[in-house]
């Protein structure tokens, strides 16, 4: 069984400060981390590999300026990693779906695609369903856990206030929630070997130019960034007055607007 894991990176939010009044973003420390949900997808793939024999292939969720994410995936336990080059950096999901479908075809197909349910910065959750549509595969979104057996995958997903187990025949696309699994760490010695180009693991990182996968016209981004906007400056110390019931109603309304969905 071959599992394709699609991984991306995100600028560590602890290194940035957004100044709403100035309308500027200050990057104090430019440090990238693996997208938390993608990290869970990698962990899910490695758990399946541990339980049953499977080949785990890491692919990037967008075009990246370096192969750090893929090196980390290899050092964590992936068997192969494909560094896609030659496309626009930070390309959108529509473009990447085309490229990834071609890359998976070049791999010789896959039985399961795992990726993060959402990105930490932009909150995008469309790559998994786009891949499912392009490949005409079923999709399971926002899974907490995944296991495979007898040509099918089982996943745990939210259902109302509880959880249900769902099953889907392979091949399929499954997206993992951030925090769904406790991810393992990359092994330091393996990382050193990859960066030094020593040993078998260094050979597991391949570089594929996008132009070999799709036509040049397919590398045109669909989404265009046209600027930034900043919310109004945070107003602190707003006092609620009235009876306990009145202030409670106003506070409940404010909480509902801000609760994570």
């Amino acid at each position, binding site marked *: 069984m071959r599992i394709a894991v699609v991984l991306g990176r995100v600028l560590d939010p602890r290194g940035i400060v957004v100044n709403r009044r100035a309308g500027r973003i200050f990057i104090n420390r430019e440090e990238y981390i693996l997208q938390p949900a993608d990290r869970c997808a990698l962990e899910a793939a490695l758990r399946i590999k541990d339980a049953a024999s499977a080949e785990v292939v890491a692919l990037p969720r967008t075009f990246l300026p370096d192969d750090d994410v893929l090196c980390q995936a290899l050092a964590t336990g992936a068997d192969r990693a494909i560094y896609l080059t030659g496309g626009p950096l930070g390309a959108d999901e529509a473009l990447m779906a085309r490229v990834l479908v071609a890359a998976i075809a070049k791999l010789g197909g896959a039985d399961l695609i795992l990726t993060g349910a959402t990105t930490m910065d*932009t909150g995008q959750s469309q790559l998994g369903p786009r891949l499912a549509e392009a490949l005409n595969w079923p999709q399971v*979104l926002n899974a907490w856990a995944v296991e495979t057996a007898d040509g099918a995958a089982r996943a745990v997903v939210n259902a109302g206030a509880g959880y249900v187990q*769902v099953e889907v025949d392979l091949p399929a696309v499954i997206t993992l929630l951030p925090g*769904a699994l406790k991810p393992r760490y990359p092994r330091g010695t393996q990382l050193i070997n990859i960066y030094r180009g020593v040993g078998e693991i260094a050979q597991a990182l391949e570089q594929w130019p996008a132009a070999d996968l799709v036509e040049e016209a397919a590398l045109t981004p669909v989404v265009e960034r046209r600027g930034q*906007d900043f919310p109004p400056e945070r107003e602190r*110390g707003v006092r609620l007055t009235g009876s*306990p019931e009145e202030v409670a109603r106003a506070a409940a309304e404010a909480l509902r607007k801000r609760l994570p969905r």
Partner: protein
Amino acid sequence: MDASFLDLLMAQQEEVTEAEGGGGIWVVADVVNGAVAPVTLEAIGAARNLAGSLGAYVYAVLLGDGVSGLAPTLYQAGADGVRVADDPSLATFAVEPYLEVLSDLFQAEQPEVIIFGATPQGQALAPRIAQRMGGGLLEHVVAMTLDEATRTVQASVPIYGGEYYEIMACPQARPQVLAVEPGAFPAPFMDPYRKGEPKSVEVKPAEPRVRVLGPAEEFTPPAVPLSQAPVVVAAGRQAGDFSLVEQLAARLGGRVAGDRGARDAGWISPEQIVDIRGVTVAPQVYVAVGIRGDTFHNAAVENAHFILAIHPDPTAPIFQVADLCIEADPKEVLPALIAALEQ
């Protein structure tokens, strides 16, 4: 004075007629517990604003079993036309049956803009429709404007949970698919005199490819560390009744924590102390119940996105860092707050 003739006059004026030739702005309705979800009405309101500039009509699509009776609500919210796919096979949401109906409809109508709610249903369907039709998708849209020269929707999407917004557009791709964030757009005026005749949509059978096996009774989600919890309800010495704090945390789906006073009272363990010498938090919502807020505590919560503080002392330092302040005894406010959240 009998003013019933006014009703008749207005009803005649507001009879909706549809345009021929396809295009337009289409809103895919979310139905929750037998009612149209508020996000759908908000999306229709946003679509109406776009439609005014685009010179386009607004259509809504209802899918489900026994949902035909909801069509008048969509007209009242501002839809010029409503399509209804009312079939027992659509009783519970599944990707394949819903996708087949929408795909056939949109292939025939060739919409210029399609709007979904940024809900689980929209999250599952919008990318697949966009991919199938070669469209661009912008998710979690909280504001939109129109580039009239190119008839392109420019959408603001939150970055890092709303720290700032990127303005994005899909100028070349059609349809332009948008998933709008619930609560981001104002609810439209519901015009009771706005009426129309919904059209039925053919529903072809499509088998769901995901099988629900049953409740995952043995599954428990991994515990999120307090430092990463999205919602934290913390108690201080003035909280009074700690069980109310626990009830509020359960209602908000949050983690219980506290300051050193709560630890001294025996309500929390040392690992639950929010303090720069203990745990530093950065949740979406932080509720400080009866916490006075010393320097160590306030520094540990300064990265919280929203802080609600309840304390009887108007000079409590917690009010300097809180977004919303309630000067009252928590014992009086918490029962009302829990009741208000349950409504």
